[in-house]
């Protein structure tokens, strides 16, 4: 295998993880972490210029290109946020330098695992990468070693492992279905072979395999009723990890699901994967929307909002067809950018105020105008108000559904509206009203925050034609 941009996407994080594990001093390592993430992002951009060829192990097509660029971009901005966030944690002594070394190394291992999952051309390799990503995030969620953090990590670990075990069973079943057609051995796990021969696979076996894969990877996507780990893991870990979990890791699991959905769509005798995904997506969206009303912890609030949005995205992909798939892709991109921006703001707010409880936060727009108004902008965006990006994608999802299944569209619209109500109820408590808690100045890095919000605002008004045609290609590919 020759060295190209695809292998560079894996080598850069792997090498930096090793280097960061050795180097002492958090200022230096935090900066190196940013540099490594930037290099990975630049490498991913080069994929637009030079198209590396896919081999037996690594693969590049239009679908994973979008995921890779989005992942490396958010990983890069999060590393910038992380650098300033971590500085504060060291100052107040919540983390020690040793833990920090571990944290930065793990951050890069996570990047490696996610890039591997996205570029793998082998369903076994993809599974290994997702398992690796899960294990690293488990360790990072538990890093504060408080009572709550340990319970969250334990819960995440157990539920995540069970999900991943089910996904492996599904992977084995796919291999069993492919074996008689492609021939035994490595070839029957290579994605490009599977796609070529999918029409001849044994349909009942594929059906059962997809159910296992949906439950397994669905746990990692955070679909209700398999979501129990998600709010805890988001609330108790360091905020940069919440941003990465919501913005990236959920997407990676979703990517795996989409791959297998494509496979089933190519086998005419197999069940249609759409209705299963639509049902789970709709349940997640409605359930999470109602759950938003009873939240008392601000990170938990946005974790439930992530479940809601993943529900909408899975719903859109389940509906299928060029328009709904396009909407799903756009929504996924917008959600990643907005949700991580919100977590950047929330992270700094929680540091300034010294608490995550909604009841102890208040009047943020008065005491910390920049952070407060950024949070307001983020919530306006995530709730789906015009003219921001998420409005556009949600509008597309609902309107494309209306033409085909009006009842489902009404239900989905209802979920979105209920969630909007819940988010604004809590936002009004946090952002406006009587100022509460400490009012000291915030040492925040605003660049990543503004970059994300800026992109989301622009996307609501104008999408570059090149991007639109890329998304349209992928939407057709997804079937």
């Amino acid at each position, binding site marked *: 295998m020759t060295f190209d941009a695809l292998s560079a996407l894996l080598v850069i994080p792997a090498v930096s993880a090793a280097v960061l594990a050795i180097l002492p001093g958090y200022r230096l390592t935090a900066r190196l972490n940013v540099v490594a993430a930037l290099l990975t992002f630049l490498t991913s951009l080069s994929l637009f210029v030079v198209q590396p060829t896919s081999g037996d192990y690594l693969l590049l097509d239009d679908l994973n290109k979008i995921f890779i660029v989005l992942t490396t971009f958010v990983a890069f901005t999060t590393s910038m946020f992380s650098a300033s966030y971590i500085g504060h944690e060291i100052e107040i002594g919540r983390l020690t330098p040793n833990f920090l070394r571990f944290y930065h190394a793990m951050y890069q291992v996570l990047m490696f695992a996610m890039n591997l999952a996205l570029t793998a051309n*082998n369903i*076994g*390799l993809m*599974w*290994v990468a997702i*398992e690796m990503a899960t*294990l690293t995030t*488990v*360790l990072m969620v*538990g890093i504060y*070693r408080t*009572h*709550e953090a*340990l*319970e969250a*990590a*334990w819960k995440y*670990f*157990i539920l995540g*492992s*069970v999900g991943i*075990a*089910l996904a*492996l*069973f599904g*992977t*084995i*079943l796919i*291999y*069993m279905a492919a*074996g*008689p057609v492609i021939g*035994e*051995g*490595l070839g*029957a*796990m290579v994605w490009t072979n599977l796609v070529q021969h999918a029409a001849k696979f*044994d349909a*009942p*076996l594929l*059906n*059962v395999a997809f159910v296992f894969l949906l439950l397994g990877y669905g746990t990692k996507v955070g679909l209700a009723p398999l979501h129990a780990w998600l*709010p*805890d893991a988001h609330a108790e870990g360091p905020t940069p990890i919440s941003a990465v979990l919501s913005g990236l890791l959920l997407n990676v699991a979703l990517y795996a699901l989409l791959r297998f959905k494509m496979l089933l769509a190519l086998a005419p005798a197999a069940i249609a994967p759409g209705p299963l995904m639509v049902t789970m997506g709709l349940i997640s969206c409605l359930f999470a929307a109602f759950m938003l009303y*009873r*939240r*008392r*912890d601000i990170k*938990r609030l946005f974790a439930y909002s992530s479940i809601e949005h993943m529900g909408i995205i899975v719903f859109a992909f389940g509906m299928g067809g060029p328009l709904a798939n396009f909407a799903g892709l756009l929504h996924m991109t917008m959600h990643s950018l907005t949700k991580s921006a919100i977590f950047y703001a929330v992270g700094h707010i929680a540091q300034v105020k010294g608490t995550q409880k909604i009841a102890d936060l208040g009047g943020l727009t008065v005491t910390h105008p920049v952070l407060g108004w950024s949070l307001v902008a983020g919530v306006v965006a995530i709730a789906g108000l015009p003219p921001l990006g998420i409005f556009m994608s949600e509008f597309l999802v609902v309107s494309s559904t209306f033409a085909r299944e009006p009842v489902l569209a009404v239900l989905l619209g209802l979920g979105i509206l209920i969630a909007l109500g819940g988010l604004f109820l809590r936002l009004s408590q946090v952002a406006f009203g009587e100022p509460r808690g400490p009012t000291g100045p915030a040492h925040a890095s605003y660049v990543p925050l503004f970059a994300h919000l800026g992109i989301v605002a622009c996307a609501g008004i104008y999408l570059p034609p090149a991007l639109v045609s890329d998304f349209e290609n992928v939407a057709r590919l997804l079937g």
Partner: protein
Amino acid sequence: MHGISFDIAHMLAGSLVLVSFLQLYQDRLSALINTFAVHALVLTASVAWQAYVQHAPHLYITAVIALVFKAIIIPVALRRIVIKLGIHREIDNVVGVGLAMLAGIGLVALSMVVMLRVTAEADPLAREDLAFALSVVLLGLLMMVTRRNAVSQVIGFMSLENGLVLAATGAKGMPLVVEISVAFSVLIAFIVIGIFLFRIRERFDTVDVQALDRFRGERR
């Protein structure tokens, strides 16, 4: 696949399900750890037999890993942890034995119905193996939900992984990548769990997961 070799493979896979049932009604931790060692031994025999029948020498590696790692190292380590924590006599079933067994029987029936029906065209060994493997996976899951002690949940998870190995070896010619990754993931899982147990011990002086339940969402 014919005659005696088929019967032996069948018997070994069936014994694995049986040992899973044995695990289900062990109410003391030390007995549970012993049963897990037996589980791993049966898995070893089954994988080795598959290696012999399929003429797939690389499967012997999987068998050796199962033997050394799962049947010896992990049980010994867990035993030490359990004795050190003084919980080897602890009884930790959440639901009664009878109910757990009934649920287990239901799950096995379910996996037979599902797997045998969908794999009608696959070769007989693979399909029976798959049905047994799914039973072991489901019984492992059942064990994880009917226990409240962290150690026994971990054992439930590992017997679940044994079921996955059974499925992977039953699928003829499955590439080595996956087998090693399965074994590897168990290794990592154990390290992670080890760290967790250590930390849980450090923080609350108990490995009872119920002690963690004080923190439930936001009810503070």
